């Protein structure tokens, strides 16, 4: 990938400066050295700010990226995972449970991908079936009953497009979550941590705050899916990734998300603990803000937040 090449060039530049320092000894002044280091840091920042939507898609899908259970490990204590939709099955593509987040009890729900081939298959690549969305709603209703805030972590290529999922009402399960999440009387905080894949992502992403990690994406269709439908050529995915405006900055500009959570330099996979810390800090701030609202206020604001989304039309009258 072109991006790796550029990243290596930057790393080499850093090493060159170190070698220069060693080779020249005291001949290179301290200020010159600082200036060089500053320039390189600036180049790096610009590089990561300006990576293409397709490159960001690759980072969002990076196999080393922290997944929901990694965030649980970093952010929660005494986590109790809860299973099953009480109707059909437990879906391993969505995990959830309660735990303590920085001193307060919360319900946390998120998509779960696998690390190796066996895990990936077991987790169905993070593609949930209806029972996954129904489990999520069951846990959210449980949280509401005991007035616990809900944190959701979103990272899925999409809802599973298989026969069994259709038979058991994939569309109905997603639709019900959208309607019910709009009226759950507790704060709901959403973080898109990797891939925000269409309805399968949105089904646990209706909330009072929507945060996105710097290298995550949120889209109505995957770039590959869009390319094969609109260009009739899946290899045009890079073009589609740009056309669909799926990066956090684009989505923030359109008013669809509330906050971009910065990642450690080079991406969350290089320092999962630091990434989790940043996610947690943003959540803690948002929880404090929302805690001050009455339930009526909370729900009215949640409604209006989505109600305002997409005022992109002209009135010809």
């Amino acid at each position, binding site marked *: 990938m072109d991006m790796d090449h550029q990243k290596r060039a930057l790393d080499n530049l850093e090493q060159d400066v170190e070698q220069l320092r060693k080779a020249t000894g005291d001949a290179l002044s301290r200020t010159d050295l600082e200036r060089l280091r500053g320039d390189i840091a600036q180049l790096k920042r610009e590089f990561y700010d300006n990576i293409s939507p397709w490159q960001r898609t690759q980072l969002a899908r990076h196999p080393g990226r922290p997944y929901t259970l990694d965030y649980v490990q970093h952010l929660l204590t005494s986590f109790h995972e809860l299973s099953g939709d009480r109707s059909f099955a437990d879906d391993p593509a969505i995990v959830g449970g309660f735990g303590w987040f920085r001193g307060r009890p919360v319900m946390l729900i998120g998509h779960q991908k696998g690390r190796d081939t066996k895990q990936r298959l077991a987790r169905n690549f993070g593609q949930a079936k209806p029972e996954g969305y129904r489990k999520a709603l069951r846990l959210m209703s449980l949280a509401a009953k005991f007035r616990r805030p809900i944190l959701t972590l979103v990272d899925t290529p999409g809802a599973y497009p298989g026969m069994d999922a259709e038979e058991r*009402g994939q569309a109905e399960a997603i639709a019900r979550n959208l309607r019910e999440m709009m009226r759950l009387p507790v704060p709901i905080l959403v973080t898109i941590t990797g891939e925000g894949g*269409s309805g399968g992502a949105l089904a646990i992403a209706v909330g009072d705050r929507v945060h996105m990690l710097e290298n995550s994406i949120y889209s109505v269709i995957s770039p590959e899916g869009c390319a094969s439908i609109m260009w009739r050529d899946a290899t045009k995915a890079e073009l589609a990734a740009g056309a669909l405006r799926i990066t956090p900055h684009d989505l923030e500009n359109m008013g669809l998300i509330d906050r971009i959570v910065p990642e450690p330099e080079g991406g969350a996979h290089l320092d999962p603990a630091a990434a989790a810390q940043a996610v947690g800090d943003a959540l803690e701030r948002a929880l404090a803000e929302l805690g001050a609202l009455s339930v009526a206020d909370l729900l009215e604001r949640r409604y209006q937040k989505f109600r305002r989304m997409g005022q992109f039309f002209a009135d010809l009258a």
Partner: protein
Amino acid sequence: MAWFKRDKDSIQSPVPPEERRVRTEGMWDKCPACRKIIWRKDLESNWQVCPKCEHHFKLGSAKRLELLLDDARWTEHDSELTSSDPLHFTDTRPYKQRLREARQKLGMNDAIVTAEGVLSGRQVICCAMEFGFIGGSMGAVVGEKVTRAIELAIARRCPLIIVSCSGGARMMEGTISLMQLAKVSGALARLDAAGLPYISVLTDPTTGGVTASYAMLGDLNIAEPGALIGFAGPRVIEQTIRQKLPDGFQRAEFLLQHGFLDAVVPRPQLKNYIASSLEFFLA
């Protein structure tokens, strides 16, 4: 109903041309179900239901409202809303051009008509999607119009009927389209809380983001016979499982059997079915 069962083989109908011959442009249609040649005028006078086998062809939004609303009269709302192409989206052609062509072809500004009218004597808010307009897809305009229609139903304390016919969220408006699912579903939560009935009518096809939001959230979900209804489209599923889907998969009758529809209602009975349901809820 008489108009539905009327004998179409009367002497007024011209003789169908041989199948192998080039069709007389615009006068004949071949029914995909019974493979018989039908005179288009017969199809039109029969609300686009095959007079030979009762296969349901797509019905345009205006005809749909004519079918459902008394005296074929209604007041349309927000007909002037039109997409501003927020992403400046271009694939093989600019989205702006696709919009322009759809507007010219159909004489409407987006893929839904939201209307206020009377159904069997009762004031209702009735929305009908138009598949001919970019596959009946939902972007910001459809999402906004449906949401306004729901809010109007709440303000007027009227029942709501939405007839869906859609390939799903509109790709050319990206994540904005996706957010319409949440927006409309939120408005439906308020309609529900207001104790007002919502009847969702699913017609061929209803897939993707429309199914995964308002089409599946009716107090009653009813569908026309044979309608394709699903989240993922059949082609996507076939690519996933690498095999062909069985006949009837994702059809209305299949969904009825699996518990996702209240009833499958043929077009000629649709209006009466809705009227008697509303009577039960509101009398």
